[in-house]
């Protein structure tokens, strides 16, 4: 009996292993920033050269940092979701306009709506490198202490917001009030 059972179990094991492997997305590289302070920078606002944005200014708030560009096709896909989220005022969203042309970027926001309280303008992509950005769009969750809590790579889906990001934001916001 074991003669047949052994290969069968081996086969089932292999199928499970391969099935799990199929579900994994190799593009989702775990970010080394999770649980670490968000990299500091200071960039001018996309809309206003005289103003500077830096993560340090956001201390005490839970916020989302969304990396976007007008040339990024998939950013269009998640854009309605960000608009909706911004309208609900549950969490402030800031943008990092990554390797973009200033005029194109502003036109893009005008055309499709601007969900960002402000966008930091990073035409050279230097801040992008500091934040380990390699595929736009990317979305970070940052807590009151300025610690990166979560990184989402690629297009945000409703399910990502509902299941991961918003519960995390809510939890972080409530812990902030207690302390």
């Amino acid at each position, binding site marked *: 009996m074991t003669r047949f059972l052994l290969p069968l179990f081996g086969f089932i094991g292999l199928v499970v292993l391969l099935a799990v492997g199929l579900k994994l997305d*190799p*593009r989702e*590289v*775990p*970010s*080394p920033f999770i649980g670490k302070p968000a990299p500091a920078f200071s960039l001018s606002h996309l809309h206003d050269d005289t103003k500077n944005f830096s993560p340090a200014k956001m201390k005490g708030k839970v916020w989302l940092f969304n990396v976007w560009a007008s040339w990024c096709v998939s950013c269009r896909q998640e854009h309605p979701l960000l608009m909706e989220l911004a309208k609900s005022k549950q969490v402030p969203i800031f943008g990092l306009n990554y*390797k973009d042309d200033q005029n194109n970027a502003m036109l893009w926001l005008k055309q499709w709506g601007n969900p960002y309280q402000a966008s930091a303008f990073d035409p050279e*992509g230097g801040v992008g*490198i*500091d*934040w*380990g950005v*390699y*595929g736009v769009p990317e979305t970070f969750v940052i807590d009151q202490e300025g610690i990166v809590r979560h990184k989402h790579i690629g297009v945000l889906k409703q399910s990502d917001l509902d299941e991961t990001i918003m519960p995390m934001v809510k939890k972080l916001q409530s812990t902030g009030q207690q302390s």
Partner: protein
Amino acid sequence: MKLIYLITFLFSFNAYAGVEVQTFDNQQQEQTYKKLVDELRCLVCQNQNLADSNAELAQDLRKKIVEMIEAGKSEQQIVDYMVARYGDFVLYRPPLNKNTFLLWAGPFLILLMGLIVLAVFVTRQKNRDKPSLSEEQQQRARKLLDEDEGDD
């Protein structure tokens, strides 16, 4: 015809213009650069290193490496810089830690498993070759066989 070939050859050199040319002050820096772009992964096209990839991010990272080398940073410092931003994944030769233990030890574990299976198989085979008859039964068998031959 020859002229056409000549022209084609002349223009074919334009292909090289796509890759930026890096010049360094000394041989040492160039060696470091070559080693680094060879061993660091481009995260956009994940199966290419920085030297192979023409993705924008790879270009930016190459530029960054050049800047850092020129600023006198050591090879280790540059590797640390990349790992701090992109994680161990950026290294084509991942370090040995608890996440990568299976990766490094896996082949040896599989080899060990193979050896065990082989050993079990060989000992079983040996046992099967051994006659399972007792001395007395063997004598009887021989006798029967001899009788058989005699009949022929």
